[in-house]
């Protein structure tokens, strides 16, 4: 469905997007942002699910199972720690008042 040159275009545009999104970030948000981008590549979960769904031998099932487990860990863990970190910034911002 996604063919050669089109794929390259997607790749190029996504690369510029990532660069642009990050380039104006204040230093204080670098750690949460690294954590946030770590969460975003947790989308590997859908790939791992599809890979396991098509598995037809035991070996491939085992690898696929590990893949889904790891990917779920990446996505969920990435979300939990990012949210925890970012919530603190909101709290700190509110306390700033008089």
């Amino acid at each position, binding site marked *: 469905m996604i063919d050669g040159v089109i794929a390259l275009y997607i790749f190029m545009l996504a690369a510029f997007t990532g660069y642009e999104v990050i380039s104006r970030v204040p230093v204080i948000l670098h*750690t949460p942002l*690294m954590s946030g981008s770590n969460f975003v590549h947790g989308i590997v979960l859908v*790939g791992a*699910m599809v890979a396991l769904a098509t598995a037809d031998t035991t070996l491939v099932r085992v690898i696929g199972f590990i893949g889904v487990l790891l990917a*779920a860990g990446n996505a969920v863990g*990435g979300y939990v720690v990012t949210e925890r970190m*970012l919530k603190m*910034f909101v709290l700190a911002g509110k*306390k700033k008042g008089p």
Partner: protein
Amino acid sequence: MPSASTIQTLTQLSYLIAAALFILGLKRMSSPVTAVSGVRWAGVGMLLATIVTLAFMGASSLNLMLVIIAIAIGTVIAWVSGKRVAMTDMPQMIALYNGMGGGAAAAIAAVELYSGNEHNPVHLTMAAVGGFIGAVSFSGSLIAFAKLQGLITKSVRFSGQKFVNLAILLITVGFGFMVVSGVGADSGLPVVSLLFVFALILGVAMTLPIGGADMPVVISLYNALTGLAVGFEGFVLDNAAMIIAGTVVGSAGTLLTQLMAKAMNRSLGNVLFSNFGETSVAGGGAAGTQKPIEASDAGVMMAYSQKIIIVPGYGLAVAQAQHKVWELTQLLMDHGVKVRFAIHPVAGRMPGHMNVLLAEAGVPYDLISDLDEINAEFETADVALIIGANDVVNPDARTNKNSPIYGMPILNADKAKNVIVIKRGQGQGFSGIDNALFGLDQTRMLYGDAQAAVSQLIQAVKAAG
């Protein structure tokens, strides 16, 4: 049940929406005000893509059950560990979750390569490259995690290490070539397995020699690599969400890695291939002797100051002293002392690590300044209070060409009228470099755990009136 092409369209549409939510989410995460909503937007995207995939992937009931069990186990483990981990241990948790992502990308590649259903040479190449990068990121991140967690305390270094690593890299690439081209397919060698084994070894071998002080850069690099691996596997699976999300993280992560390396005035190659720390004996040696001070005296000095700049470092994180520091700050401000926090870009184990901790304690942003904003102000400060920071205030970086950190921008704490350093012992810091600041005439050392020392300071300031 809708037709196959409808399902295909629905799935692709949900991936498109997910990808858009990821980009918008990252964008919102780049401002403190919208940051929490940013990660939630991205979370909605992830949930949408996962549910649609689960509903429409058309797995046999056995495979479907396996998928659900695997997700359940992974979710529970990550949820519990993510909720429990202390803020100070965030860097290694990010490394761990990132390693899991890399491992998942490698697993997808392994499924594609072992099942042998893929014959398109472009897809085979993508699968092998993504699997290789994913496996390196997996084992490398685990080593980074182990180092930060204190499970591995030694940096393994030996002469000729670079060449050994280069050899491992070439062997891995060689097996990758065999996998893709089919050369040597009848040799009986399990080339796919060998590719993964050597990629895993490479990740370990690359990360072992890197000192703990450089770990943030390395974690960021592996984060970018995992993104790339996910992007490559996205090509193999024709999955636009993976291609876009993976590539966005790959490029954003690369930029972030460069920003971090630049903050330490080092190139990425320097971080990865130089044996940092080994040459530290050549450092100038601490001039002068370290002069201790009692907390009571330090407290009086601080209570009667006009302006104090606090420089937090990793010692503050280890001791979980952020709440006490904020208490001390409020107390001093009640005394009419002007207090500011100076954050070095690489203080702690990650850029922004200190900001996260201070935010946790409730310190408002406007008291916190970065290097460029605050450096001129040290000259007007009565006291620079260094809490568990070392290399980021080492004046050798400005003056001593033999110092391994020569050229790194530092906080000019040595320009303050008085310097109080809270430090656990007399030894060298994490990077093993002597610090000339500690021997200066105006410097006094307050030995002890950061939390205990700051508590004593609080008592002393209270006692001072």
